[in-house]
């Protein structure tokens, strides 16, 4: 269970802009530590954003996404008070879901 994601979802008309900041180390598996040993990869692989149980964006990440991944996009057909949830799963099977209301 990782740290909570920061999510902001703001409605303008019937369009909602979502900004997400996930908390994750996103280790590539390419880096070496001071002793020259490869630091094992550890990164988010899948992200799913839902609005009231309808998927509005699903993403696949590789290790080239920056540490603490940021994601923003817009979707239509929601209003203030609707629930937006963000679920991620990393390569170790760890998963986390966070939810906010559309403002």
């Amino acid at each position: 269970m990782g740290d909570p994601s920061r999510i902001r979802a703001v409605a303008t008309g019937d369009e909602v802009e979502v900004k997400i900041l996930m908390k994750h180390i996103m280790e590539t598996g390419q880096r070496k530590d001071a002793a020259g040993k490869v630091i094992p990869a550890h990164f988010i692989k899948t992200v799913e954003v839902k609005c009231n149980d309808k998927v509005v964006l699903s993403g696949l990440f590789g290790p080239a996404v920056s540490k603490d991944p940021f994601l923003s996009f817009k979707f239509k057909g929601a209003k203030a008070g609707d629930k937006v949830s963000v679920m991620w799963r990393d390569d170790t099977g760890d998963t986390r879901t966070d939810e906010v209301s559309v403002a």
Partner: protein
Amino acid sequence: MTLNRRDILRITSVLSLAFAAGILKPSDVFAAEWSADVFSAKGLDAAVKALGGSSFAVSKDISIDAPDIAENGAVVPVSISSAVPNTEYMAILVEKNPAAMAASFDIPAGTESAVTTRVKMGMTSQIHALIKADGKWLVASKETKVTLGGCGG
């Protein structure tokens, strides 16, 4: 209230059923599967092949917003957007990274075909925005110079 053995059995069986139902929710079913082939392909051509496409065309209807010069290759903001109708899939690729594919997105109806995220770049490279619309693969590219690589080592 006293519970006899029968009651306790009944309660635990109901609880365990509910628990199983909760676990079995299809929350981990994604439209597209994470594929090691796609995420280890070197360069744009190989990545498109790994995705099952045979060819791609350069399109003016895709825009890609990334800095001309990135001081820190570990955090390069990239926005991609597509004006192509029926854009169903979008991806960000960095040509000279150890694996080109950085992130890909399925765009359901109702979601704008534009996403912003941040990627790592090992060195100065082309960044590609790859999209799929009506079964066709389209791409736009932009070069970003990196003064400090993002892959350590």
